[in-house]
Every structure is written in C-alpha cells, then in structure tokens.
C-alpha cells in the first residue's frame, strides 16, 4: 500500500496498513530546520508524509498589490494588514446590496489560481495523495464585507449576506471543479466557523446561510470524483450533525483546546466520517518535549484509529512556533505506533 492508497483507504473509513499522516501547511522554518535547504515537495517525500498539500493561502493563488508598508490589496478587492507574523483582512469592497450586485469576483480560471498544484500533481499523482485546500463560502464572503459587518448583516441585512454567499459559492464550486479536473485527489474546504467555546453564529443561522452553499461545494467535489474534507477551527459540536449530513468524507482539525475531544467525536461520527487532526499545535508541539509528543500521538491513535478512518495531523498547521524536533517526533510516532496489526 503506498501513501496515496493509505490516505484514500482512511478517507473511505476503511483500515489501511498504517495510520496515514498529512499536514495542510508546514512553515518553511520548521521543515528547513529538519532538513536544511529542502523544498516542501522534497520534504514530503523524504520525511514520509502521505500527502502533498497545496493550501491556497500560501500558494500565491490571489495576487496582491502593495498599498503601503503595512497594507496590501488582493484580487477580491479586500485590504489586508500585513505584520511580520501574518496577514489579515481589515476592509472589504462590499458594504451594500448594490455593491454586491455590481461586484465581480476573481476569475477561477486564471492561470495562477491553483498555485503549485499542477506541479505537485505531475510529480506525486498516484504516489502521494494530492490535496488542494481552498474555501467554500463563509470566510471569503466575510472578507468581502469585513467580518464584523458581515455577521451584523446576518441580523440587519440578510439579503446582502445571501447575495455575497452566492457570489462566493459560485466561485468556490468553479475553483474546486478545476482543481479536481487538474488532478487533485482531495479538496479540503477551510472556513472557520467557531471560537474555542462555540460557533460564531447560531446553528439556525448556519443552516440558513452557510449550509446550502457548503453543501453545493462539497457535492461539486464529490461529483468530480474527489474526496472532500471540511476544516473548521473551534468548537463545532453544534454544527457537526449538519456538516456530517452533507456527505463530506472527513472532518478536521478537531482542536483539543476547543473541546473537540477525539474519542467523543469518534464515538459519535466515526462510522460516517474520517477524522483528521487533533495533535495540539499550541502547547504540545511548541513547548513540550519530543517524548511528550510521541506519547500524545500514540494515545490519540489508540483512541481514533481503531476500525480505520483516522489520519494524523496537527490541530491547525505546523506554524513557525512549532519546535522542529517535535514535528519530527510527531511523524516518527505515527510510523512507529500507527501500524494496524
């Protein structure tokens, strides 16, 4: 069984030879600390990850124009503040229903839109699972309107919310279909719905506004013949019934700090979806010892892997504060403790 088969078997809820491991994004400072000078695809190959992933945020999928030292604007017309650590949207082009009706989204067919995905497909298709990570409806829509205003409009201007979500859903469907036709095996849909303690919106509002469009994007991915993963940070317990009912293949990242306790998730949904994630990229991967990491991975595997349908991954990404030796330990532990006998 090779890496690709391993991932597909787990995503189908079956038992592979070993628990697979993947990561949407590993910061270059981490993987280059482990193997100096290496590229991401070479790292995936050498260290033994089972998937090569292309996360749109870091793939130059949307070009940016510099406004000044601290701000850029992207192809959506969204203004982002830039610090050393990250970029975050601070202003959007859509304020009224009229703005929304006039708005033209980026072209999903633009040549650079898939970033390095074509290159990864060329090199790894059939060997590693090729994963394309984009969004579905929520966050791109929220960025177009500024998150606070977007959420406020759920109450005071729902028509605007619906209009913007439709625009974004249409874009996302087109982009996802394109990625799968290009050769992506798995599409991961981002969009964070929740804080550590609860979703940002009520389950009722999620059902009214977000779910219909999320479902369309998932169905488009499945229709094209790829696997689909729903990623959302935070405590999504009250949304999971709806998310799992869409027919999505896997859920991620199952943050421990947000009470997404893996045994509980496995018990409730493990027969219907593959679980991906749950290895804490906060205190555990940043501060604990490699031995602690190995122990935690072993424990997580023992709770989540029985019967198949579990893939090791972090609770978000392997960001720049993760200790490289801890990430190595996470990978080693998966290889050591992840064999199905």
């Amino acid at each position, binding site marked *: 069984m090779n890496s690709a088969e391993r991932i597909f078997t787990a995503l189908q809820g079956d038992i592979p030879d070993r628990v697979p491991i993947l990561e949407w994004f590993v910061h270059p400072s981490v993987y280059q600390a482990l193997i100096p000078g290496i590229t991401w695809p070479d790292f995936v190959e050498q260290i033994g990850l089972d998937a090569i992933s292309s996360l749109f945020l870091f793939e130059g999928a949307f070009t940016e124009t510099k406004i000044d030292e601290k701000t850029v604007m992207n192809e959506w017309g969204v203004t982002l503040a830039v610090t050393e*650590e990250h970029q975050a949207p601070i202003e959007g082009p859509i304020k009224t229903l009229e703005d929304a009706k006039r708005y033209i989204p980026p072209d999903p067919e633009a040549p650079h839109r898939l970033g390095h995905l074509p290159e990864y497909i060329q090199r790894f298709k059939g060997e590693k699972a090729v994963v394309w990570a984009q969004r579905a409806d929520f966050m791109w829509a929220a960025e177009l309107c500024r998150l606070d205003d977007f959420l406020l409009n759920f109450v*005071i201007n729902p028509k605007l919310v619906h209009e913007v979500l439709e625009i974004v859903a249409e874009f996302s469907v087109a982009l996802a279909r394109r990625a799968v036709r290009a050769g992506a095996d798995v599409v991961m849909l981002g969009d964070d719905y929740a804080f550590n303690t609860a979703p*940002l919106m009520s389950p009722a*509002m999620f059902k009214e506004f977000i779910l219909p469009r999320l479902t369309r994007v998932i169905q488009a991915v499945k229709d094209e013949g790829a696997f689909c993963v729903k990623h959302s940070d935070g405590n999504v317990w009250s949304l999971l019934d709806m998310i799992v009912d869409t027919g999505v293949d896997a859920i991620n990242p199952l943050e421990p700090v947000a009470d997404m306790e893996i045994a509980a998730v496995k018990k409730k949904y493990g027969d219907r979806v593959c679980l991906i994630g749950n290895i804490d990229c*906060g205190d555990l991967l940043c501060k604990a010892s490699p031995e602690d990491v190995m122990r935690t991975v072993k424990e997580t595997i023992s709770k989540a892997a029985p019967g198949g349908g579990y893939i090791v991954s972090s609770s978000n990404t392997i960001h720049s504060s993760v200790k490289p030796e801890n990430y190595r330990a996470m990978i080693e532990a998966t290889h050591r403790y992840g064999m199905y006998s």
Partner: protein
Amino acid sequence: MADTYQEIASSLYRGDASKVAELVREAIDKNLDVSEILSDGLMKGMDKVGQDFKTNVIYVPEVLAAARAMQTGMNLLRPFLVKGEVKGRGKYVIGTVAGDVHDIGKNLVKMLLEGAEFEVIDLGVDVAVEDFVNAVSEHSPKILGLSALLTTTQKSMLATIEGLEESGLRQSVKIMVGGAPITASYAEEIGADGFAPDASAAVDVAGNLVKWR
C-alpha cells in the same frame, strides 16, 4: 416608566436600533431620568445580551446587532449625561498585541464590557508595547486587556507585561488576557491577573478584578 425601560431593553436585545432610538427619544422628551434610561433600559438590555451569549442562546450576529442598538441609544443620551453622574465601573484599555491583526474577539469583549458599564479605550490591533505603556500611563485604567489569536504572537503579551514592569506601571493596573491560543496556565506563566476563555467570561473576570482592586 418601568414599561418604557423594559421596551428599550427588549428592543436593544432584538437588535432593533431604530426602535431603541425612538423609545430613548420619547423617554428624554418625557423628562425621564437620563441615568435611569441608561441603566434600566440600555444596560439592562446589554446585561441580558451578555448572559444569553454566555449560555449560547444568542451568538455573535445578535450581539453585534444589540451593541449597535446600544450605541444608537447611547449617542442620544450622551449630550444629557453629566460627567461624573454616571459612575461606571472604571476604565478598561484593550488591544490586540503587536504582530497580530485579529480583532473580532477583542471587539466582542469591548462591546460586552461597555454593556457592563466599563469605559473602554480601544487601542486597536498590532499595538506596540510602548503604545500599551503610554495608554496605561495616560488613562490610568483599572484593567488592561490583551488579545492574541496566533501562537506566534502570544509572546507579545509577555513583552507588554515586561514593558509595563520596566516603566514602573505594572502594579498600577490589573492585566487580563485572552484569545484562541491563550490558556489559564499561560496567563499564570506570564504573570497576568486574569484570563478568560471567551468574551462572555471576560466580563465576569473583569468584574472580579475591579471588585478586588
């Protein structure tokens, strides 16, 4: 009178800003006590918002709509409020730490604190250590609240606390911290006085810090 205040509170809770404005104007025209309109109408409404947000009866959209309705009411009352007449619970300086531009959590905390009668001075996002220090020096707040969403920016919280120590201001203010990667043990580790796992809890923590000051 009680009915008017109740109507103001429930219109605020529903996020009906224009109804709140209409009722507050009526109340002012009837010469009702302005500080009562504030406390028994607007603040009462926000109090219920805070409670129901805490227990997941309502969520962020409803809180934002209610806060907007509250601001509408406050703007009408402001010219009539005599300085010092409204006691309030004290000044609270808040900001997202250096390197971090996330703000929705901070904004929610701010709204709920204002609803709980704190006077909130919002420094915004990506706030440098010296700007926090200057704000504490200038405003002498009872509490300083620090927000960070990234594991990579939470270290700015420690830097901010150290900056206050170096300026001799640390003892003059209570510090509380929050944000997705922030834990109670991290708060303790960096010497913060309080920690809240979410915006609703932040109001309770702030209330306790002020009580013991």
